[in-house]
Every structure is written in structure tokens, then in C-alpha cells.
């Protein structure tokens, strides 16, 4: 049985900034063969919808995987501003 990602992320506390801390240049995604970000992101922030890569920063758990996996350097990556983002109480 695989649990839905919503159930997992539902255990976390977030303070969401209105400004995205990660930005993706989707032009590069079109001819990206691997699309490793989709498999690698532990929060499933990347998704393929009708052959197009979609990204949402709100669920991000700030690991840095996507930045390292993206060979096209299409990801402008940062942590959220101070006080924003995810909180782990049992990390």
C-alpha cells in the first residue's frame, strides 16, 4: 500500500510566504529528457500534467534535491526567507 503524499505532508506545519522561494524556468523543461525532479522531490512539488512540468513551492520541505538533480540549471533555488517555510518537530 502506498500512502498519498497529502497524508504525509499533512503531518507538517508550514508558514507560507507569498513569494516563491524556488523558481523554475519551464522553457528548459520542455526538452529535458530526464525530468529527474519529478521522481526525486520527496514532497512531490513537481508534476507532469499533460506532458508539461508543473511546480508549486508551498509544499516544499526545503531539502535541495531538485536543484542538484536538474542538469539544465532551470531551478533558481533558495531557502524560504527567515521564519517562513516548513517546521519539523521530530526531525
Amino acid at each position, binding site marked *: 500500500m502506498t500512502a498519498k503524499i497529502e497524508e*504525509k505532508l499533512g503531518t507538517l506545519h508550514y508558514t507560507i510566504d507569498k513569494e516563491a522561494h524556488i523558481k523554475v524556468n519551464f522553457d528548459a523543461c520542455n526538452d529535458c529528457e530526464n525530468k529527474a525532479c519529478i521522481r*526525486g522531490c520527496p514532497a*512531490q512539488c513537481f508534476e507532469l500534467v499533460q506532458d508539461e512540468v508543473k511546480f508549486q513551492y508551498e509544499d516544499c*520541505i526545503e531539502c535541495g534535491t531538485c536543484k542538484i538533480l536538474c542538469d539544465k540549471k532551470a531551478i533558481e533555488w533558495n531557502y524560504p526567507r527567515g521564519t517562513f517555510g516548513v*517546521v*519539523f518537530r521530530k526531525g
Partner: protein
Amino acid sequence: MVESVDTIVVGAGPAGSATAYSLAKAGHEVLLVERGKTPGEKNVSGGVLYGSVLHELIPNFWDEAPLERVITNRNLVFLSGESSFSLDFSSSKLEKPPHNGYSVIRYDFDQWFAKQAEETGALLATGIRVDDLLWENKQIVGIKAGSDEIRAKVVVAADGINSTLVEQAGLRKDLKAKYIALGIKEVIGLPRDVIENRFNLEHNEGTAHTYLGCTKGYPGGGFLYTNQDSLSLGIVLKLPIFKTKSHSKAPEFIDHLKQFPYIRRLIKEGTRLEYSAHLVPEGGYHGLSKLYTDGFLVTGDAAGLTLNIGYALEGMNFAIASGVAAAKTILRAHKQNDFTQSTMKHYQKLMNQSFVLKDMKTFRNAPAIVSSPRLMKSYPDFINNLALDLYQSTASPRPKLINLILKHVVHEISLPHLFIDGIKAVRGL
């Protein structure tokens, strides 16, 4: 906010708090900056804290620090489908401080450690993300956070694996996927007495499990640590896995782990309290960044100071040791009133002499060995199938042990591979 201090430490994980604590203890002015609202809320580890380094810094820390359990049992488990084969070791000798390990929850532990630094005299500023280094004549002279600029004689990068400061200082290029692993963890709540019965533990005793054969044949492994009233169950996966096509998404690997009957029993009736993920530097000696430049030192994960030798992952203790060495270097630089590379390089010397870089050098080939595809699949299958043939009773005559071994070796692993891996493991681990 103050505009100038002697030393700025970026990041209140174990590396940063150790640096700030050591400096404050020597009466030195130090500012510890953390992006989280509280230290620890951004941090994730397995995690077993090995005690001896922290004991040198804060004697008998176990009397006050928020620790979960003393690790008195270690279990290396080869998982293969319905079967499991374990090497289980328990000893009350493992209980004796300071050479022992404790399970910790970072939200509690990091908060406590940063507070020790603060109470000793360090200034702690939380909720502030450091964005840039401040430069003057090609020298690092402080930090920028939003519109604030703070100057310092030395900046210490203790900002963890995704350190932006190390890159800005020109001490490391982009992180290479082959040197990094993704750790995904679920904390599973269970009553204390259930944990103690299930794992055969007494009051504060705890266990640490390492799993092989649970990563669908990809390089990585699993772990389970007992906390007071929860289990930390997780999986560590080498990042290049995700560059190969046609296999599961990252979160599915932990679901896969939970389906092994061995694990299913251990977590039965538990509730998922938290899901988390964090990167681990796993390049070992080959994955290290440069450790210093003018007015700048790099500690802990930011420098890549961790060691995974398959049955143990060390990082927090390395981080603390590097923080202590960084503080010594800064105090010495102050005496000489020189903060250029010529005094900063003393840090490299101290690290070379410490167990951290010695171990990382000794085990420099370990990352390659512990990520061998055979270790991930063939050996766990081999050992479990062999055990099954040994213990299962059938109506046919029993073969001799040696014939059984040869049968499985031919089936599951080739003899030359077994030989080569054996030599590599003996020499590398």
C-alpha cells in the same frame, strides 16, 4: 541589530552551536544566526548522536541534554521479500558514557545546544536567513541578510549541506549528485511500553537498525531508531537513482520499506507523527569542499564532513568536532590579530589531526563499497535464500551446507564478484 561583531556563525545546527559555544566560553564576541524561528526546526537526522566529542565540550552533557534513548543494541538486517536475516548485537557495555550513542530528535536537541551557546554568552539571532557574504577588496568581511549588513573579522559557514556561502566564497562548485543522498524519514508514534516490549529494551535503552536490500536494488539503505515514545524509520537514497528512468518516486521508497514483513511487525499499530526529508553528504573524503579562505571557515555538512560506512552514519559528531576546531583557529587568529589564510589554515591542520579527517581518509573508499548494487540486492537475497534452505524442512534429503552455499552463489552472485567484493570490503571498511 549590531553592525559589527568579532565572529559571525551562520547556522545553529551542531556545527554552528559548537563553534559559538566554544568561542563564547573563551569570552569571545560571537553572533549565531539561524534561519529557523527556533534552532532545530529545519533539521533532520536519523539520528544517533555519538557522545564523546560533545562530552569534551560539555562534560556529562547527558545529565541535561534532551536525549531519547541510549543505544545498547545494534542490528544489521538483510531484507529479501518475505525473509530477513539479522546480525543482532546487544551489550550493556554500549551504555557506558561517553563512548556511546544516543537517539535524538533535532528539534529538541538543537534548541538545547543553541541555548547552551546563548547562556554562555553568544548572541543568538533566529528567523534570519543569511543571503550573501559581504566583501571588501576581495576579502570576506561579514554577511548580508535582507537589507541588513553585519561586519565581522571571521565568518563561519555552518549552514549545512545546501550551503550557499561555501559556493559564494568560491570553495566549492555545484554539489555533485553522485556525492549526495536523500534521506526520507517518518516518525511513528507508539507507547513507551510497547516499544520496550517489542524491541526487548529496558527503561532508557534503545536500538539502532540498519537495513540492506530494501531499496529496490538501488544504492541506499534503511534505518530505524527508537526514541522514547516513537520510532524514526527512514531510507537513504543516492541521488543519481532519480536520474535513471522508469522507477518509483522518492516518497514511494519509504512505503516500500514499510511493506517488508519484518518492518511491518515493528511499526504495527503506530501512527505517523511526521514525514520529513533532508540531504546527506555522502562523498566522503572525495566530496569535501575546501575548508578555509581569508576570514572564512567551513564546518560540518557545509564542508561535506560525514561518513557512511554502511552500518553507521556519522555527521553530528563530526560537525561538533569541526566547530570546536574552527573556534580554536579563530581564538588563535585573534592573538595574532591576523585573519587571513595564513592563520585560517590552522583549521585545516587541526582537522587533519582530528579523528574526523583521519576516519574520512581511512574510509575514503567506503562510499563506493556501501553503494555497490550487489550489496543492495544480491547479498541480501543470497543470505536469506541460503538461510531458508538451511531451516526449511522439506521431504527431500538435506544437501550439505557447502553445496547449498555454492548453489546460491552461482544463482545470486558470481564467484569472482563475491571474491572482489570481499577483498574490497575487508580493505575499505
